[in-house]
């Protein structure tokens, strides 16, 4: 059996980040960018593999950040992960940004991340598991330990995704799907149809 090698990446916010995880060894590459992640992601992965001295064929699982965050950014990574997984014949495993931020921190902990529009994404993690992820007003305060927003420092996101994906890789996983948390912002048509008269 070949050794496990997890490739993870995330473009859910203003960055393009990737990690490779082999046992305890981690290789990381992350670049800040507001846009251009679609163009940068594949070259970044190729460069990371080269730096680690690994080949695509060595990858045994893919971890991908599913958000919440920038809708387009999330889709860039999820679509790429699904394509890579199909092409390599390995599983792709979705990890939310909030799970990744809570990874490795002492629990209980509340993850609070900027959601723009004066709102935050919030999810509480305790010893028993994770609470429901939700969106709250940015001004909300929490008791106890907080991660993100002036709180505890999380692992680099791509590394956390890689570690969570590695832990899940042994069991059957659904395909990664974007975790939007926000609706599509579409309103049903407002004009009522005309009254049709009986002839």
């Amino acid at each position, binding site marked *: 059996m070949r050794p496990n090698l997890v490739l993870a990446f995330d473009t859910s916010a203003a960055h393009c980040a990737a990690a490779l995880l082999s046992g305890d060894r981690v290789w990381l590459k992350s670049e800040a960018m507001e846009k251009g992640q679609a163009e940068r992601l594949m070259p970044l992965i190729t460069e990371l593999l080269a730096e680690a001295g690994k080949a695509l064929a060595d990858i045994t699982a893919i971890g991908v950040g599913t958000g919440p965050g920038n809708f387009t950014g999330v889709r860039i990574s999820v679509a790429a992960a699904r394509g890579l997984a199909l092409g390599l014949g390995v599983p792709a495993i979705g990890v939310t940004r909030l799970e990744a931020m809570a990874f490795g921190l002492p629990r209980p902990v509340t993850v609070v991340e900027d959601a723009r529009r004066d709102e935050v994404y919030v999810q509480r993690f305790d010893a028993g598991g994770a609470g429901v992820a939700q969106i709250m007003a940015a001004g909300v305060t929490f008791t106890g330990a907080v991660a993100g927003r002036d709180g505890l420092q999380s692992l680099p996101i791509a590394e956390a995704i890689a570690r969570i994906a590695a832990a899940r890789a042994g069991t059957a996983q659904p395909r990664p799907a974007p975790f939007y948390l926000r609706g599509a912002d579409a309103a049903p048509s407002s004009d009522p149809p*005309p009254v049709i008269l009986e002839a």
Partner: protein
Amino acid sequence: MTGSLTFLGIESSCDDTAAAVVRHVPGQPAQILASIVEGQTALHAAFGGVVPEIAARAHAERLDHCVEQALAESAVALADLDGIAVTAGPGLIGGVLSGVMLARGLALATGLPIVGVNHLAGHALTPRLTDQLAFPYLMLLVSGGHCQFLIVHSEHRFERLGGTIDDAPGEAFDKTAKLLGLNQPGGPAVQTEAALGDAKRFAFPRPLLDRPGCDMSFSGLKTALLRARDAVIAEKGGLTVQDRRDLCAGFQAAVADVLAEKTRRALEVYAALNPARPALAVAGGVAANTAVRARLQTTCAQAGVEFLAPPLRLCTDNAAMIAWAGIERFRAGDYGSADLVARPRWPLDATAAPLLGSGKKGAKA
């Protein structure tokens, strides 16, 4: 490249998620080994039109399933492919981007070349997939998103003679259906009603017929329909079933008239090329409208030009046309580029004056 080529095609530029496998042996008709199209009509029905974010969400979670289904149905393994062709624009960027990223992931994993295809080129080259039509031919692309006349000179040279300066006719059919309380998509619903109506009862405009050239406009027609509808409602408090049929018939006749006359003019320009086998090919959902089609057939017959309409499943959005366009480009020496990017705006004929969306971002299509 003289041997057999087998391409995977991927399409996600509007509201159809599609994947296909096409094989071509030189000198033989191409074979569509599988063509999967998963529509999204139900997802958008409540909104009276395609919602880009809803479309993008569906594409991102369906594309890989469609690809797997196409490979399974064609019994072609990824290792048997010679390349991947993907729609890289123009279209709704969220969907196009999902398709391009999936294709880039597949290409990186397999080492296959990836060819970015212009969605409009996919439609424009379809008559060669279905009928081995020789260049140059005249193409009328008439759908929910596009309306243009193109002389197809080669697999990469498309000369636009004219097109809509505002809405596409398919969009106008959808809007008409919505204004009259008919189901979406509007084309089939309006056609059914129009068949029972009197096209002469309401006088609708024939926009731009008074001007030379092949440009068209359908936005004013929508407004005219709304006014005519509201006049009837003001008088009676609603529409009778017959009012609705007559409105549909009048609207459809106006669209058919405009398309027929502009086609006649486009054929005149095309005839100057002295093509060996003069032909007009149509693509797009509106080409399936029987009244429009009948008028175009008459116009072609009068001009002594063959009329060619691919089967409906290849007339509307699909991935077989994308795979085919990829094969055509590959044979012409375009082996693709791994750093393919999605282009929401991508006119086929970059030399023609922009019809839609000029400004610093450039023409839309």
